[in-house]
């Protein structure tokens, strides 16, 4: 029985457009598409003054809206929802620090960076690093490594 604390993490806009999807359990493509549809429907239907938690199948869904983006994750039954809110918040802070006043457009046009940052923060559905600074340093170093290589190869970056 494979179970990670967090099953998936989705970012989508208020119109339901997917901006990022991270899956922490193996699922077929068709299943993933269905889940994305279900999540966007469920979360977008929530009224303003409701709490950030809801139940879906055997999972707890934690979501939070930041400006025009919904951050939505699914937890196993025994997980701590309040901590999940902190996790989502931490990710937003990391993005904000990297992009400087991050907005949805940043994530659209630099989606691969959003993934790289996420992969320094979470791994296998668990928190990997709890220090913001440490993550920022790693990302910076990786970017430098990429640039160095690019410079060396005299090829343009994306």
């Amino acid at each position, binding site marked *: 029985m*494979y*179970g*990670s604390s967090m099953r998936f993490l989705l970012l989508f806009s208020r119109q339901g457009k*997917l*901006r*990022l*999807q991270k899956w*922490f359990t*193996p*699922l*077929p493509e068709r299943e993933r*598409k269905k889940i994305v549809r279900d999540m966007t429907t469920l979360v977008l239907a929530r009224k303003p*003054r*409701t*709490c*950030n*938690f*809801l139940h879906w199948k055997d999972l707890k869904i934690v979501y939070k809206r930041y400006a025009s983006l919904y951050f939505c994750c699914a937890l196993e039954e025994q997980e*701590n*929802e*309040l*901590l999940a*809110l*902190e*996790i989502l*918040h*931490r990710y937003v802070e990391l993005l904000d620090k990297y992009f400087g006043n991050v907005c949805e457009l940043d994530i*659209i*046009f630099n*989606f*691969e960076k959003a*993934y*790289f940052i996420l*992969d320094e923060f979470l*791994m*296998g559905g*668990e*928190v*990997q*690093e*709890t*220090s*913001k*600074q*440490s993550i920022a340093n*790693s990302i910076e*170093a*990786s970017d430098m*490594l*990429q640039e160095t*290589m*690019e410079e060396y*190869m005299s*090829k343009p*970056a*994306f």
Partner: protein
Amino acid sequence: MSPSVRLQELIRVIRSARTQCEERGVIQRECAAIREQFRQNDNGGRSHNLAKLLYVHMLGYPAHFGQMECVRLIASPRYSEKRIGYLGAMMLLDEKQDASLLITNSIKNDLSHSSQYVQSLALCTLACMGSAEMCRDLAPEIERLLKASNSYIKKKATLCAVHIIRKVPELGEMFTPSAHSLLSEKNHGVLHGAVVLITELCERNTQTLDNFRKAVPELVQIMKGLVMSGYSPEHNVAGISDPFLQVRILRLLRILGRNNDRASDAMNDLLAQVATNTDSTKTAGSAVLYETVLTVMDIRSESGLRVLAVNILGRFLLNNDRNIRYISMTSLLKIVQTDHNAVQRHRGTIVDCLKDQDASVQRRALELSLALVSSVNIRSLMKELLLFLSTCPPELRAHAASGIFIAAEKYAPSQRWHIDTILHVLTTAGSDVRDETVPNLIQLITSASELHCYTVHKLYRALVTDISQQPLVQVACWCIGEYGDLLLKGDCEETEPVQVTEDDVLDALETVLQSHMSSPATRAFALTATMKLSTRITENVDRIRSIVSIYGSCIDVELQQRAVEYNALFRKYDHMRAAVLERMPVIDKGQTNGEMSANNIKDLEQTDVKIPEVPLPSNQLCLEVCDLLDLLGGSEEPLQPSQAPPSSVPTPSSTGTGQDLLDLLGGVCPAPVPVVTGVTVYEKNGLTVTLQCDQRTETSVTVSLLASNSTDSDITSFSLQAAVPKSVQLQMKAPSGDVVPAHGAGQVTQTVILMNPNKVNLKMRVRVSYSSQGSFCQDTAQIDSFPTTAWS
């Protein structure tokens, strides 16, 4: 071939597409170009192209042709290509694809790469989509990296190990030794990973769990350090030092302390400290406190600590943050049974949450409130619940109504309060109550005999106000029919005196009969009530007669049948009308499926009413009772009483308790051997009754019941009654006699014809009554399947 477009340029173009069709066109063209370039093995723009493909994939378009490109890019020496290649692998490949195996070798190589960032890519990808096979292959590598000196790699290797164990649990043994030593790391990332790893190992293996209990003091120390440490900028979140790590440690402590006194003792002080010192003004602190509460309630903690935990939850209820209120109630719900008194202290706050804006908070508040009802607080709490019922969102009404009924039944301080409460619910949420509410309420009303006058007045008033709530109308009609005389008398000490005339009452019932809002069942109630009033009123009997005769041609078959029978009661059988329609006795409260006890049947028997074998009013009376009380119990349909053989009284057949039923046929193996001699249905005290199937068609069965007596003395006053499911018609022919001679000298036979037009599952309950050796006996037998005939 169209020129390659930069990624961001492509994104811009896609976004500016005005229609879905336009977007599709752009993407298809670009994908074709990318595909072509993949084939050409173009060295320059490979990572570029893959990035574009990944974007398009996120929009929902197919990207499977990029899978091999991922494999190629991962194998590249260039970091930028590896980076996007691994990302592509995580997005496009899963363990089901063949291509995923192809990257195993690259991952293996990259795990030993000189650059830790390349190692990191490999570790991350393995932990994301590594199949069981890949995990087995690479586990030794990961184990080696666990002991590596670099904390950046160590923390990632640890979580990779977690993934491996989830995929291949047997490999847990490989990582257990290193796991413990990781706890002495200072780096929070590694420490966090270590705690997760140990948790995973303990959850999967009880022996490992036992072993790791010795780590409790160490974990307690680490926690203490976090809680008591000063401000640490690197890990601080709203005044809490590394809440992520704190929560994971608390969770591990929970697992280790569960069902173990020693371990629980060792962590008791720490938990008290965390519970007292953690600042819960922000979510981070609340998250830690929440986890603490969960741990305290799950381990063998001292009662003082438990009370502390419940008080934290109580405090949470007052928090401005809706999330925290929600969490608190979910937790309180889990512990309300075990720590009832502690939770009771917070009842006031819980009841206030009934007024919350959030429906999920309201729902939990409702469940908690219902769980907290006791004989002490029933009156005040019920007021709140009834108030809630009138204002709550519609999706919660049914739940609230049934919860209120259950609570009222358990703790009603008086019958009048009980009736009032049920009436209140019926007027507020009548359409949301369950079907058995009506018979349950009627039963309750009959048992409160001093309150009949009060009840009928209240119900009459409710009826004339509003006839849309069906359950209420049904109960009201029944009461008016039954206690109409009390209603007309006018004076009732408990309510204001009001003069109700016979015409008023008949008007009310007729309104119900004619209203389009009334369901067929409700109209049936109204018609019967009208009929019953014919013996309770004096002046307007003619009006009743005319109402009844009108409905004799009603299009609703049920109403028509009733009306025709009532008509007959007015004409041919008028001499019996008074007896038939007289006041019903108290209905005994049976089990939840409404089984009646044997005593009741005696009460319901109409003494000495002899009726020839035409199905009639007494049937009707009994039919009503059957409507109310589901005699056959459970999901089966209510029984129709048997038609009377001349000498005995028509009554609904009783169902004894389960133990009385001699389910002889139940144990019989269903091998359809035609048995001419019949099946034994009842055998006791020397009396044997067998069932023999005489004839069987698709829609009818004719059986003979044969009674014989092996005792020394005759059995006298022998009689059989039978009951069958509702859609089946029963016809009992006259028995051959009522004395079963001793020593098996002769038999009493009785033929029974069952008409089964709907071809339902045939069952029959038979009641045997007889006198033997001076004592009177009565027994029931159930026949669940009918034997085949001799000829079939």
